[in-house]
């Protein structure tokens, strides 16, 4: 690692003041992405602002139909929290299916939203990469791209967003709370990440000096019947080739009243499929016409490269399987 200075504020205001005073500084929470990338020479901030000792940013509470998760809550603690498990089981799954026990104990939820792509060209500074070194080119488009995105890509970048938690958060209409030089604001999770277009190095709407303070999502019939399905090369401790965050509210006759869907692993950012509610309303998950339309909408505009065309049929199957599982779980809970 390149040498850096280290400051440890005890208040949010002081952390934000430091971030404004040192624009090149980075916030340190769990460190599982940042320290790794600093060791690889991919990023080299001259200062780390360790925010772990700021009080009040790690609380998890469920009240009045809403779940609020502090940005410094750790993945393992959020996944195990009683309210998360019972009222948003898909969110708990999205955390438990990610990383390893050790990493989940370290990684914060705010940092998890900000984790960087696993694209090999981004992570190896000997290759060109428009995300790491703007203007240097993309090694992946005509290179090793089996793991990378087919949706939301650009001529500059085909990196995929690697996270799991953000996919479920987007499916369940979550919100990300920010604080910074211009004050506090709330951003829908679905618009927090940006598409690469011609600036793939800018990955979110976070302004300079802004930090994530909390994450929230509505609790209700959808969150209670949510499911995270992750398809990957090995059965644990692996990134998704494709993942499906699905939620459905079933009527007693087994038809769907309302539904949500977002995809991960195959897109440049968490990928909401906003047509899900309309296409599935009044239908059953085993209705081939409705499900076919949903699968078509989900991968509409996909642009496969030499190594990743398999992700399109994989996503279609995973979508059908996720809703079938939700229907089974719903029937089981009614029985």
């Amino acid at each position, binding site marked *: 690692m390149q040498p850096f200075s280290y400051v440890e504020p005890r208040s949010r205001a002081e952390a934000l003041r430091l971030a404004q005073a040192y624009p090149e500084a980075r916030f340190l929470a769990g460190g599982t992405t940042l320290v790794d990338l600093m060791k690889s020479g991919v990023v080299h901030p001259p200062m780390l602002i360790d925010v772990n000792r700021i009080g009040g940013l790690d609380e998890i509470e469920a009240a009045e139909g809403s779940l609020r998760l502090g940005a410094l809550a750790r993945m393992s603690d959020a996944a195990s929290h009683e309210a998360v498990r019972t009222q948003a089981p898909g969110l708990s799954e999205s955390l438990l299916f990610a990383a390893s026990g050790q*990493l989940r104990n370290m990684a914060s939820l705010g940092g998890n939203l900000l984790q960087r792509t696993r694209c090999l060209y981004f992570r190896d500074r000997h290759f060109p990469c428009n995300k790491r070194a703007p203007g240097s080119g993309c090694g992946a488009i005509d290179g090793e791209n089996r793991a990378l995105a087919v949706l939301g890509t650009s001529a500059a970048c085909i990196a995929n967003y690697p996270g799991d938690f953000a996919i479920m958060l987007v499916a369940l209409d979550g919100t990300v709370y920010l604080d910074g030089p211009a004050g506090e604001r709330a951003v829908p999770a679905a618009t927090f990440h940006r598409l690469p277009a011609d600036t793939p190095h800018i990955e979110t709407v976070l302004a300079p000096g802004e930090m994530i303070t909390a994450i929230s999502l509505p609790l209700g019939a959808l969150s209670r019947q949510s499911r995270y399905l992750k398809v990957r090369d090995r059965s644990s401790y692996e990134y998704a080739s494709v993942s499906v965050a699905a939620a459905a509210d079933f009527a007693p006759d087994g038809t769907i009243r309302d539904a949500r869907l977002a995809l991960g692993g195959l897109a440049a950012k968490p990928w909401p499929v906003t047509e899900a509610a309309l296409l599935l309303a009044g239908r059953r998950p085993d209705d081939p016409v409705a499900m076919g339309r949903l699968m078509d909408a989900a991968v509409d505009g996909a642009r496969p490269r030499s190594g990743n065309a398999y992700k399109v049929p994989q996503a279609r199957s995973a979508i059908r399987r996720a809703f079938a599982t939700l229907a089974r779980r719903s029937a089981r809970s009614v029985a």
Partner: protein
Amino acid sequence: MVAPRPDTAFAVHDPLAAVTLRLTVNGAVTEVSVEPWTTLLDALRERIGLTGTKKGCDHGACGACTVLIDGRRVLSCLTLALSARDGAITTIEGLAAPDGTLHPMQRAFAEHDALQCGYCTPGQIMSAVAVLAEADAGRPSAATDPAHRVTGRAVLDEREIRERMSGNLCRCAAYQNIVAAVREVAEATDPSRP
């Protein structure tokens, strides 16, 4: 440089400065000199001389460097020594009793021959000790049926053990015996069993 204010409780503004820290390792307070970029792993091995904790990938991918901080398993290669100064750190050297009696997990790994080269073993054992504590606390894993209401210890069958231990890689692939060792200790110490 902006002068630190009272609510910046701790700061190292000179990136090249060595800082003297007090780390609590295996119950003993040790003074150690580190730089801001010194990882806990390097502090343990190179500065304190506790070489039981292993450096495998050094990037958070293999689990060989697993230690406990306040009873929680973490990767010491991705933890800055500065960040760890408030916690109670436990390494493989701290598991056995002062008289040398091995921890049940150490004994089970030896009895089940749960290793070949042994390089990943300290991390495997530290992780396994934490897995039992997590199960005792009723914490779920990806292998836990979401409909199952956990009360008391989560059941540690083979599938659960493999899932919960997946952050510890063994290039010799001694997994079969690692699972057997963890399972034996889990069953022997299950508070719900008569």
